[in-house]
Protein backbone atom coordinates (compact mmCIF):
# COMPACT_ATOMS: atom_id res chain seq x y z
CA UNK A 1 0.00 0.00 0.00
CA UNK A 2 3.07 2.24 0.22
CA UNK A 3 3.97 5.06 -2.17
CA UNK A 4 7.54 3.80 -2.21
CA UNK A 5 9.11 0.67 -0.81
CA UNK A 6 10.83 0.29 2.54
CA UNK A 7 13.17 -2.59 3.36
CA UNK A 8 11.03 -3.42 6.37
CA UNK A 9 7.87 -1.50 7.31
CA UNK A 10 8.64 -1.11 10.99
CA UNK A 11 6.19 0.24 13.50
CA UNK A 12 6.04 0.09 17.28
CA UNK A 13 3.89 -3.05 17.36
CA UNK A 14 6.09 -4.90 14.90
CA UNK A 15 9.17 -4.09 16.95
CA UNK A 16 7.52 -5.43 20.11
CA UNK A 17 6.32 -8.51 18.23
CA UNK A 18 9.79 -9.17 16.75
CA UNK A 19 11.36 -8.75 20.18
CA UNK A 20 9.08 -11.49 21.50
CA UNK A 21 9.92 -13.73 18.53
CA UNK A 22 13.63 -13.24 19.31
CA UNK A 23 13.15 -13.94 23.02
CA UNK A 24 11.03 -17.03 22.25
CA UNK A 25 13.64 -18.40 19.85
CA UNK A 26 16.46 -17.78 22.33
CA UNK A 27 14.59 -19.44 25.21
CA UNK A 28 13.75 -22.45 23.02
CA UNK A 29 17.36 -22.89 21.87
CA UNK A 30 18.74 -22.54 25.41
CA UNK A 31 16.20 -25.05 26.77
CA UNK A 32 16.74 -27.55 23.93
CA UNK A 33 20.53 -27.40 24.15
CA UNK A 34 20.47 -27.50 27.96
CA UNK A 35 18.19 -30.54 28.11
CA UNK A 36 20.09 -32.38 25.34
CA UNK A 37 23.48 -31.77 26.97
CA UNK A 38 22.12 -32.84 30.36
CA UNK A 39 20.52 -36.04 29.06
CA UNK A 40 23.02 -36.95 26.34
CA UNK A 41 26.41 -35.31 27.00
CA UNK A 42 28.07 -37.20 24.10
CA UNK A 43 26.08 -35.19 21.50
CA UNK A 44 28.44 -33.33 19.17
CA UNK A 45 28.08 -29.57 18.69
CA UNK A 46 27.12 -30.05 15.01
CA UNK A 47 24.35 -32.53 15.88
CA UNK A 48 23.17 -30.20 18.63
CA UNK A 49 22.89 -27.29 16.19
CA UNK A 50 21.18 -29.42 13.52
CA UNK A 51 18.59 -30.77 15.95
CA UNK A 52 18.01 -27.53 17.86
CA UNK A 53 17.35 -25.50 14.71
CA UNK A 54 15.44 -28.32 13.00
CA UNK A 55 12.98 -28.67 15.87
CA UNK A 56 12.80 -24.89 16.21
CA UNK A 57 11.85 -24.57 12.52
CA UNK A 58 9.13 -27.21 12.91
CA UNK A 59 7.75 -25.52 16.04
CA UNK A 60 7.67 -22.13 14.27
CA UNK A 61 6.06 -23.71 11.18
CA UNK A 62 3.27 -25.09 13.36
CA UNK A 63 2.69 -21.65 14.89
CA UNK A 64 2.67 -20.04 11.43
CA UNK A 65 0.13 -22.57 10.19
CA UNK A 66 -2.28 -22.22 13.11
CA UNK A 67 -2.33 -18.40 13.13
CA UNK A 68 -4.49 -18.23 9.97
CA UNK A 69 -7.39 -20.40 11.17
CA UNK A 70 -7.15 -19.05 14.74
CA UNK A 71 -7.57 -15.50 13.41
CA UNK A 72 -10.59 -16.63 11.41
CA UNK A 73 -12.13 -18.13 14.54
CA UNK A 74 -11.24 -15.44 17.09
CA UNK A 75 -10.42 -11.82 16.31
CA UNK A 76 -8.06 -11.67 19.32
CA UNK A 77 -5.52 -13.51 17.15
CA UNK A 78 -5.61 -10.90 14.37
CA UNK A 79 -2.50 -9.03 15.63
CA UNK A 80 -0.56 -12.28 15.20
CA UNK A 81 -1.83 -12.58 11.62
CA UNK A 82 -0.88 -8.97 10.98
CA UNK A 83 2.70 -9.74 12.05
CA UNK A 84 2.99 -13.32 10.71
CA UNK A 85 5.43 -12.42 7.94
CA UNK A 86 8.42 -11.98 10.28
CA UNK A 87 7.62 -15.24 12.03
CA UNK A 88 7.63 -17.02 8.66
CA UNK A 89 11.01 -15.55 7.73
CA UNK A 90 12.39 -16.53 11.17
CA UNK A 91 11.15 -20.07 10.55
CA UNK A 92 12.95 -20.16 7.19
CA UNK A 93 16.19 -18.91 8.76
CA UNK A 94 15.98 -21.65 11.43
CA UNK A 95 15.34 -24.25 8.70
CA UNK A 96 18.27 -22.83 6.71
CA UNK A 97 20.65 -23.24 9.66
CA UNK A 98 19.38 -26.82 10.11
CA UNK A 99 19.68 -27.64 6.39
CA UNK A 100 22.96 -25.79 5.91
CA UNK A 101 24.69 -27.51 8.83
CA UNK A 102 23.28 -30.89 7.75
CA UNK A 103 24.57 -30.53 4.18
CA UNK A 104 27.92 -29.27 5.48
CA UNK A 105 28.33 -32.09 7.97
CA UNK A 106 27.09 -34.98 5.84
CA UNK A 107 27.68 -34.02 2.20
CA UNK A 108 30.35 -31.37 1.80
CA UNK A 109 33.48 -33.19 2.92
CA UNK A 110 33.97 -35.25 -0.25
CA UNK A 111 35.00 -34.19 -3.73
CA UNK A 112 31.43 -34.15 -5.07
CA UNK A 113 29.18 -31.08 -5.11
CA UNK A 114 27.21 -31.18 -1.81
CA UNK A 115 23.81 -30.75 -3.51
CA UNK A 116 24.67 -33.52 -5.98
CA UNK A 117 25.87 -35.71 -3.11
CA UNK A 118 22.70 -34.99 -1.13
CA UNK A 119 20.44 -36.25 -3.92
CA UNK A 120 22.57 -39.12 -5.22
CA UNK A 121 24.53 -40.54 -2.26
CA UNK A 122 21.59 -42.72 -1.23
CA UNK A 123 19.67 -44.06 -4.21
CA UNK A 124 17.15 -46.14 -2.22
CA UNK A 125 14.22 -44.09 -3.49
CA UNK A 126 12.09 -47.22 -3.80
CA UNK A 127 12.58 -48.20 -0.16
CA UNK A 128 10.47 -46.78 2.65
CA UNK A 129 12.84 -47.83 5.41
CA UNK A 130 15.98 -46.51 3.67
CA UNK A 131 14.46 -43.62 1.73
CA UNK A 132 16.85 -40.61 1.46
CA UNK A 133 14.72 -38.45 3.74
CA UNK A 134 17.21 -35.57 3.56
CA UNK A 135 16.08 -34.89 -0.02
CA UNK A 136 12.51 -34.22 1.22
CA UNK A 137 13.84 -31.68 3.69
CA UNK A 138 15.93 -30.07 0.95
CA UNK A 139 12.93 -29.58 -1.34
CA UNK A 140 10.91 -28.22 1.58
CA UNK A 141 13.77 -25.79 2.23
CA UNK A 142 13.65 -24.60 -1.41
CA UNK A 143 9.91 -23.89 -1.04
CA UNK A 144 10.47 -22.06 2.24
CA UNK A 145 13.26 -20.06 0.56
CA UNK A 146 10.93 -18.99 -2.26
CA UNK A 147 8.31 -17.96 0.28
CA UNK A 148 10.67 -16.09 2.60
CA UNK A 149 12.44 -14.32 -0.27
CA UNK A 150 9.11 -13.06 -1.66
CA UNK A 151 7.80 -11.84 1.70
CA UNK A 152 7.87 -8.22 0.63
CA UNK A 153 5.12 -6.02 -0.79
CA UNK A 154 7.16 -5.57 -3.99
CA UNK A 155 6.51 -9.24 -4.79
CA UNK A 156 2.87 -9.08 -3.84
CA UNK A 157 2.34 -6.20 -6.25
CA UNK A 158 4.52 -7.41 -9.13
CA UNK A 159 3.69 -11.11 -9.06
CA UNK A 160 -0.03 -10.18 -8.60
CA UNK A 161 -1.85 -11.07 -5.37
CA UNK A 162 -3.24 -14.26 -6.95
CA UNK A 163 0.16 -15.64 -8.04
CA UNK A 164 1.74 -14.55 -4.76
CA UNK A 165 -0.98 -16.30 -2.78
CA UNK A 166 -0.59 -19.48 -4.84
CA UNK A 167 3.16 -19.43 -4.24
CA UNK A 168 2.66 -19.00 -0.52
CA UNK A 169 0.04 -21.75 -0.36
CA UNK A 170 2.95 -24.09 -1.17
CA UNK A 171 3.65 -23.92 2.57
CA UNK A 172 1.23 -26.83 2.94
CA UNK A 173 3.25 -28.90 0.45
CA UNK A 174 6.42 -27.94 2.33
CA UNK A 175 4.72 -29.00 5.59
CA UNK A 176 3.87 -32.41 4.07
CA UNK A 177 7.48 -32.83 2.90
CA UNK A 178 8.77 -31.87 6.35
CA UNK A 179 6.43 -34.33 8.08
CA UNK A 180 7.73 -37.14 5.81
CA UNK A 181 11.31 -35.90 6.27
CA UNK A 182 11.00 -36.12 10.06
CA UNK A 183 9.07 -39.42 10.14
CA UNK A 184 11.41 -41.26 7.76
CA UNK A 185 14.46 -39.72 9.43
CA UNK A 186 13.24 -40.63 12.89
CA UNK A 187 12.54 -44.21 11.89
CA UNK A 188 15.94 -44.62 10.26
CA UNK A 189 17.98 -43.06 13.03
CA UNK A 190 16.91 -42.98 16.67
CA UNK A 191 13.15 -43.57 16.82
CA UNK A 192 11.80 -41.15 19.42
CA UNK A 193 8.17 -41.83 20.24
CA UNK A 194 7.94 -38.52 22.09
CA UNK A 195 8.95 -36.46 19.03
CA UNK A 196 6.75 -38.53 16.70
CA UNK A 197 3.86 -38.11 19.15
CA UNK A 198 4.37 -34.33 19.27
CA UNK A 199 4.40 -34.20 15.46
CA UNK A 200 1.16 -36.20 15.21
CA UNK A 201 -0.41 -33.95 17.86
CA UNK A 202 0.71 -30.88 15.90
CA UNK A 203 -0.77 -32.28 12.69
CA UNK A 204 -4.09 -32.98 14.43
CA UNK A 205 -4.21 -29.44 15.82
CA UNK A 206 -3.42 -27.86 12.43
CA UNK A 207 -5.89 -30.05 10.53
CA UNK A 208 -8.67 -29.54 13.12
CA UNK A 209 -8.31 -25.75 13.20
CA UNK A 210 -8.36 -25.56 9.41
CA UNK A 211 -11.48 -27.73 9.26
CA UNK A 212 -13.28 -25.67 11.93
CA UNK A 213 -12.32 -22.41 10.16
CA UNK A 214 -13.53 -23.85 6.82
CA UNK A 215 -16.82 -24.80 8.48
CA UNK A 216 -17.19 -21.21 9.68
CA UNK A 217 -16.56 -19.98 6.13
CA UNK A 218 -19.31 -22.20 4.77
CA UNK A 219 -21.70 -20.62 7.30
CA UNK A 220 -20.83 -17.16 5.93
CA UNK A 221 -21.40 -18.43 2.40
CA UNK A 222 -24.80 -19.67 3.50
CA UNK A 223 -25.82 -16.08 4.41
CA UNK A 224 -27.36 -15.25 1.07
CA UNK A 225 -29.65 -12.38 0.20
CA UNK A 226 -33.29 -12.93 -0.76
CA UNK A 227 -34.84 -11.83 -4.05
CA UNK A 228 -37.49 -9.15 -4.10
CA UNK A 229 -39.68 -7.97 -6.96
CA UNK A 230 -37.83 -5.02 -8.48
CA UNK A 231 -34.26 -6.35 -8.65
CA UNK A 232 -33.33 -5.34 -5.11
CA UNK A 233 -32.43 -8.13 -2.72
CA UNK A 234 -33.20 -8.19 0.98
CA UNK A 235 -30.01 -8.21 3.10
CA UNK A 236 -30.94 -7.92 6.77
CA UNK A 237 -32.53 -5.70 9.39
CA UNK A 238 -30.49 -2.54 10.00
CA UNK A 239 -30.15 -3.46 13.70
CA UNK A 240 -28.41 -6.71 12.74
CA UNK A 241 -25.30 -4.72 11.75
CA UNK A 242 -23.13 -3.53 14.67
CA UNK A 243 -21.90 0.08 14.68
CA UNK A 244 -18.59 0.61 12.82
CA UNK A 245 -18.73 -3.02 11.71
CA UNK A 246 -20.24 -5.00 8.86
CA UNK A 247 -22.32 -8.01 8.03
CA UNK A 248 -21.13 -10.23 5.21
CA UNK A 249 -23.54 -11.62 2.62
CA UNK A 250 -23.34 -13.61 -0.57
CA UNK A 251 -24.69 -11.55 -3.44
CA UNK A 252 -24.51 -13.12 -6.92
CA UNK A 253 -21.92 -15.62 -5.59
CA UNK A 254 -19.69 -12.77 -4.37
CA UNK A 255 -19.08 -11.84 -0.74
CA UNK A 256 -20.26 -8.33 0.03
CA UNK A 257 -19.76 -6.40 3.29
CA UNK A 258 -22.48 -3.96 4.40
CA UNK A 259 -20.98 -1.44 6.85
CA UNK A 260 -22.82 0.68 9.40
CA UNK A 261 -21.07 3.90 10.49
CA UNK A 262 -22.05 7.44 11.51
CA UNK A 263 -25.76 6.53 11.21
CA UNK A 264 -25.37 5.47 7.58
CA UNK A 265 -24.77 2.35 5.49
CA UNK A 266 -22.40 1.50 2.61
CA UNK A 267 -21.67 -1.77 0.82
CA UNK A 268 -18.36 -2.83 -0.74
CA UNK A 269 -16.76 -6.06 -1.93
CA UNK A 270 -15.60 -8.17 0.99
CA UNK A 271 -12.27 -9.04 -0.68
CA UNK A 272 -9.25 -6.87 0.14
CA UNK A 273 -6.97 -6.11 -2.83
CA UNK A 274 -3.86 -6.85 -0.79
CA UNK A 275 -4.15 -10.53 0.06
CA UNK A 276 -7.85 -11.22 -0.25
CA UNK A 277 -8.50 -10.49 3.43
CA UNK A 278 -12.14 -10.34 4.65
CA UNK A 279 -12.91 -6.60 4.79
CA UNK A 280 -16.28 -7.30 6.41
CA UNK A 281 -14.51 -8.76 9.43
CA UNK A 282 -12.61 -5.52 9.91
CA UNK A 283 -13.97 -2.31 11.34
CA UNK A 284 -14.20 1.38 10.53
CA UNK A 285 -11.05 3.13 11.74
CA UNK A 286 -10.60 6.88 11.09
CA UNK A 287 -13.54 6.76 8.70
CA UNK A 288 -12.04 3.92 6.64
CA UNK A 289 -12.89 0.24 6.32
CA UNK A 290 -9.76 -1.40 7.70
CA UNK A 291 -8.79 -4.91 6.61
CA UNK A 292 -8.29 -7.10 9.69
CA UNK A 293 -5.36 -8.95 8.11
CA UNK A 294 -2.83 -6.24 7.28
CA UNK A 295 -4.57 -2.92 7.88
CA UNK A 296 -5.24 -1.92 4.24
CA UNK A 297 -7.89 0.80 4.21
CA UNK A 298 -10.79 1.76 1.92
CA UNK A 299 -13.32 4.58 2.07
CA UNK A 300 -16.72 2.92 2.56
CA UNK A 301 -18.63 5.22 0.18
CA UNK A 302 -16.38 4.66 -2.87
CA UNK A 303 -14.24 1.58 -2.12
CA UNK A 304 -11.04 3.57 -2.77
CA UNK A 305 -7.95 3.58 -0.58
CA UNK A 306 -7.40 7.10 0.78
CA UNK A 307 -4.87 9.11 -1.28
CA UNK A 308 -2.04 8.68 -2.14
CA UNK A 309 -2.85 4.95 -2.20
CA UNK A 310 -4.51 3.49 -5.27
CA UNK A 311 -6.30 0.24 -4.33
CA UNK A 312 -9.99 0.04 -5.23
CA UNK A 313 -12.77 -2.45 -4.60
CA UNK A 314 -16.26 -2.75 -6.08
CA UNK A 315 -19.13 -0.87 -4.44
CA UNK A 316 -22.87 -1.66 -4.29
CA UNK A 317 -26.06 0.40 -4.13
CA UNK A 318 -28.22 0.04 -1.03
CA UNK A 319 -31.65 1.21 0.02
CA UNK A 320 -33.52 1.05 3.30
CA UNK A 321 -37.25 0.56 3.89
CA UNK A 322 -38.87 0.11 7.30
CA UNK A 323 -35.45 -0.63 8.85
CA UNK A 324 -34.89 -3.38 6.25
CA UNK A 325 -31.73 -3.14 4.12
CA UNK A 326 -31.84 -3.99 0.40
CA UNK A 327 -28.98 -4.25 -2.13
CA UNK A 328 -28.73 -4.11 -5.91
CA UNK A 329 -26.82 -7.31 -6.70
CA UNK A 330 -24.79 -5.98 -9.63
CA UNK A 331 -21.40 -4.64 -8.46
CA UNK A 332 -20.44 -1.18 -9.61
CA UNK A 333 -16.96 -0.71 -11.15
CA UNK A 334 -14.17 -0.65 -8.55
CA UNK A 335 -13.91 2.73 -6.85
CA UNK A 336 -17.37 3.99 -7.92
CA UNK A 337 -18.79 6.55 -5.50
CA UNK A 338 -22.17 5.65 -3.96
CA UNK A 339 -23.89 8.06 -1.60
CA UNK A 340 -24.25 6.31 1.78
CA UNK A 341 -27.86 5.75 2.82
CA UNK A 342 -29.00 7.36 6.03
CA UNK A 343 -30.53 5.08 8.65
Amino acid sequence: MGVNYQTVLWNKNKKVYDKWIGIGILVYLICFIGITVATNPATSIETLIIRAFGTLAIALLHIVLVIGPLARLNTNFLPLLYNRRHLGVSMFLAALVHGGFSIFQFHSLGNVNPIYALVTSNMDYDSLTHFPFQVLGFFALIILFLMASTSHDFWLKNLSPKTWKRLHMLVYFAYALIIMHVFLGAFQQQPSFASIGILIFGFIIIASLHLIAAFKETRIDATVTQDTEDGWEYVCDVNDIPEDRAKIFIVEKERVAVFKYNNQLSAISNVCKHQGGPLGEGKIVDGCVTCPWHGYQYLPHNGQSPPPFTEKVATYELRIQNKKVYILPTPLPEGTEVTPILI
Partner: protein
Amino acid sequence: METLIKIIPVLILIYFGIGVLFGIYFFAKGAAKIDSLISESKWTVRLFLVPGAIGLWPILLIKILKTSKS
Protein backbone atom coordinates in the same frame (compact mmCIF):
# COMPACT_ATOMS: atom_id res chain seq x y z
CA MET B 1 15.08 -43.60 -12.90
CA GLU B 2 18.68 -43.40 -11.68
CA THR B 3 19.67 -41.12 -14.55
CA LEU B 4 16.70 -38.85 -13.83
CA ILE B 5 17.65 -38.61 -10.16
CA LYS B 6 21.21 -37.69 -11.13
CA ILE B 7 19.94 -34.99 -13.52
CA ILE B 8 17.76 -33.28 -10.88
CA PRO B 9 20.60 -31.79 -8.77
CA VAL B 10 22.37 -30.63 -11.93
CA LEU B 11 19.20 -28.85 -13.07
CA ILE B 12 18.79 -27.27 -9.63
CA LEU B 13 22.38 -26.02 -9.66
CA ILE B 14 22.00 -24.64 -13.21
CA TYR B 15 18.68 -22.97 -12.28
CA PHE B 16 20.09 -21.23 -9.22
CA GLY B 17 23.38 -20.46 -11.00
CA ILE B 18 21.47 -18.53 -13.67
CA GLY B 19 19.38 -17.07 -10.84
CA VAL B 20 22.47 -15.59 -9.15
CA LEU B 21 23.55 -13.91 -12.40
CA PHE B 22 20.01 -12.62 -12.96
CA GLY B 23 19.89 -11.44 -9.33
CA ILE B 24 22.89 -9.16 -9.98
CA TYR B 25 21.18 -7.72 -13.08
CA PHE B 26 17.90 -7.36 -11.17
CA PHE B 27 19.66 -5.40 -8.43
CA ALA B 28 21.40 -3.13 -10.91
CA LYS B 29 18.61 -2.49 -13.45
CA GLY B 30 15.88 -5.11 -13.71
CA ALA B 31 13.81 -4.24 -10.61
CA ALA B 32 13.34 -0.63 -11.76
CA LYS B 33 12.23 -1.84 -15.21
CA ILE B 34 9.18 -3.67 -13.86
CA ASP B 35 8.30 -1.25 -11.04
CA SER B 36 9.04 2.47 -11.23
CA LEU B 37 8.59 2.84 -7.43
CA ILE B 38 11.93 1.05 -7.01
CA SER B 39 13.75 4.12 -8.36
CA GLU B 40 12.30 6.14 -5.47
CA SER B 41 13.28 3.53 -2.88
CA LYS B 42 16.61 3.00 -1.15
CA TRP B 43 19.20 0.63 -2.65
CA THR B 44 18.78 -1.64 0.38
CA VAL B 45 15.28 -2.48 -0.89
CA ARG B 46 16.72 -3.73 -4.19
CA LEU B 47 19.29 -5.75 -2.24
CA PHE B 48 16.46 -7.22 -0.19
CA LEU B 49 14.75 -8.35 -3.40
CA VAL B 50 17.76 -10.23 -4.81
CA PRO B 51 17.00 -13.63 -3.15
CA GLY B 52 13.48 -13.54 -4.61
CA ALA B 53 14.92 -12.68 -8.02
CA ILE B 54 17.31 -15.64 -7.77
CA GLY B 55 14.40 -17.96 -7.03
CA LEU B 56 11.86 -16.59 -9.51
CA TRP B 57 14.10 -15.40 -12.34
CA PRO B 58 12.12 -16.98 -15.23
CA ILE B 59 8.91 -15.12 -14.26
CA LEU B 60 10.79 -11.85 -13.81
CA LEU B 61 12.72 -12.26 -17.06
CA ILE B 62 9.42 -12.69 -18.95
CA LYS B 63 8.02 -9.61 -17.19
CA ILE B 64 11.07 -7.51 -18.08
CA LEU B 65 11.00 -8.67 -21.71
CA LYS B 66 7.28 -7.84 -21.95
CA THR B 67 7.88 -4.39 -20.42
CA SER B 68 10.75 -3.71 -22.84
CA LYS B 69 8.56 -4.64 -25.87
CA SER B 70 5.58 -2.48 -24.85
